[in-house]
């Protein structure tokens, strides 16, 4: 199968859906001639024109409202926010409008949009362009939250998100855009939301990782394999709704679980994952406390070394998983 980068897979999914469905359009800042800050939409303006690849002024709240209002009246818009940090400027529309309209109006409307945004640190962009606030959105009933980590998953989940009748927040780990490359089918396919993927099978420790922590956990697992440890790596892929079953089953098998995410630990998604496991039948199978490895509770610093140390790296995952496997927790 031909290979695409993460970025190319996302673009292909959008292009193919826009060819298939007239109601799909892309709206965001500098997505036209510029091609988006990361080049995701490069070339799309030429094919679809300015009425379907809509460059906006710097108005994130306006983008949030535009996709909500358009979705309520029959369209399937894709809103792009340049960095997920800027989604804070659109929160009213996402939280008070999009997420609630259907429920608040007694089920008489639906808001089938998706909002895409790059997420995470590692690009030297400091505190206001590097955050991982995914859990803010997980907390809001009415929203779905997706975060793929491979080109294959990105295309299939993006297509499913466009076709979903609910507002979907779609986070793209920005370090993967050009770095992650892998096989992607040329045809359209959906990966259903709410289905986790076991990225690596094993028996000693279950690592539940999200976003950039998935490739790092896989790398850590390979390193640990040389020490004779067999590590499972599970990527939930959809944070809400969560595929609890896949996680619980794995923990019941290994008895040891390490949760890894880039977001700050306090109030992060790891707390939810830990609680889901603790409340499940897997609790009786635990041979060690549930361990969370997460970003430090600080804004992302600029300096390269400080930034590197702000979030879990491969060596940190190796160390934590090893401790857990050897019963040193």
């Amino acid at each position, binding site marked *: 199968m031909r290979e695409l980068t993460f970025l190319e897979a996302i673009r292909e999914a959008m292009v193919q859906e826009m060819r298939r469905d007239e109601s799909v359009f892309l709206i965001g800042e500098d997505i036209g001639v510029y091609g988006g800050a990361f080049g995701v939409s490069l070339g799309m303006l030429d094919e679809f024109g300015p009425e379907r690849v809509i460059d906006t*002024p710097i108005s994130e*709240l*306006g983008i*949030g409202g535009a996709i909500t*209002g*358009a979705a309520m009246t029959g369209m399937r*818009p894709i809103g792009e926010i340049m960095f997920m940090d800027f989604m804070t400027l659109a929160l009213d529309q996402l939280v*008070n409008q999009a997420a609630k309209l259907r429920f608040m109006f007694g089920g008489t409307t639906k808001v089938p949009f998706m909002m895409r945004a790059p997420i995470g640190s590692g690009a030297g962009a400091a505190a206001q362009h590097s955050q991982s606030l995914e859990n803010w959105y997980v907390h809001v009933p009415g929203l779905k939250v997706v975060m793929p980590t491979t080109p294959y998953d990105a295309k299939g989940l993006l297509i499913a998100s466009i076709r979903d009748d609910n507002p979907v927040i779609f986070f793209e780990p920005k370090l993967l855009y050009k770095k992650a490359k892998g096989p992607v089918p040329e045809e359209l396919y959906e990966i259903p939301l709410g289905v986790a993927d076991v990225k690596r099978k094993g028996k000693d420790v279950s690592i539940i990782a999200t976003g950039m922590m998935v490739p790092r956990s896989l790398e850590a697992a390979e390193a640990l394999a040389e020490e004779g440890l067999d590590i499972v790596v599970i990527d939930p892929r959809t944070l809400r709704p969560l595929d609890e079953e896949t996680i619980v089953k794995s923990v019941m098998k290994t008895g040891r679980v390490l949760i890894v995410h880039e977001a700050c630990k306090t109030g992060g998604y790891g707390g939810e994952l830990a609680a889901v496991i603790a409340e499940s039948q897997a609790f009786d199978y635990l041979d060690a406390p549930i361990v969370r490895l997460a970003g430090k509770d600080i804004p992302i610093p600029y300096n390269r070394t400080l930034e590197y140390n702000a979030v879990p790296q491969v060596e940190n995952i190796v160390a934590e998983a090893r401790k857990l496997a050897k019963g040193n927790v």
Partner: protein
Amino acid sequence: MSVDKNTRIDWLRQMYTGRAFEEMAEKLYALGKIHGTMHLSMGMEASAVGTIAAIKEGDYILGTHRGHTQLVAYGADLNRMMAEFMGKAAGYCRGRGGSMHIADVPGGYLGAQGIVGGNIPLSVGVGLTIRNRKTDQICVCFFGDGAANEGAFHESLNMAAIWKLPIVFVCENNQYGMSMNIKNAMAIDQISDRAASYGMPGITVDGNDVMAVYEAVGEAIKRARAGEGPSLVENNTYRWRGHSKSDANRYRTKEEIAKWMKKDPIARFQGQMIKEGVLTQAEADQIATDAKEAIESAVKFADASPEPDVSTILEGVYVE
């Protein structure tokens, strides 16, 4: 602009019905039949009725938290409105929305709003849908003077203007954002002056004159349908009651309220029609009585309607 007698009588009926709905709302609240709060638009009826009189079937409306008369003018079913107000299962939102969120999305009334200015960005999306469909629909977006100071107002009017979207922004300026008088909230005299900064026409009208509102909004709608873009219409008016049920009216005088109550849009419009000889006092009294009876009958309907079943509490969060 000439408007035939029957249409004008309809407008009067709508204003009386909106007023009767809200008088009943206060009564029900006093009786303890309503929990929560409500935002009454008494005294502002001409703004809602004159605006909605100018739209046609298929157009979209985005309402406000002070939207009972907007809904009446839109033609909402009074029974379902009252049932929603009382939190009943037969309400427009199955009791999930209440006074602040009554909506009839399938009919084009895209909902009343609890977030000041929160509906203004939605209008941009509605405008994009219409542009995509290439129909001659338009969207009327109501908001208050308070919302005109939200960032949402700025972003949305700018976006609507650059894309020439078919939206009429209707500012119901009732002089107060909760307790703050507009004189303290902005350094200009007219909100419509802001239209110039977006490159769209702006006009301020006497919002207690239903005909003046109808004409101004009608002109703006004509432009919007012709593809000439959005406009801002400011209806100058006044709310007789407090912001909500918690309001003790500490920020304004009885004299000021009394002065505005003399400008009652209903009495004024009715007086004009009687003077012109197109309506008799007896006919007017009958319209008022009919409106009250329609509301009483809506209360009966709502009273008889069941409470929402608790087993349905999770329904409607997601499309399954």
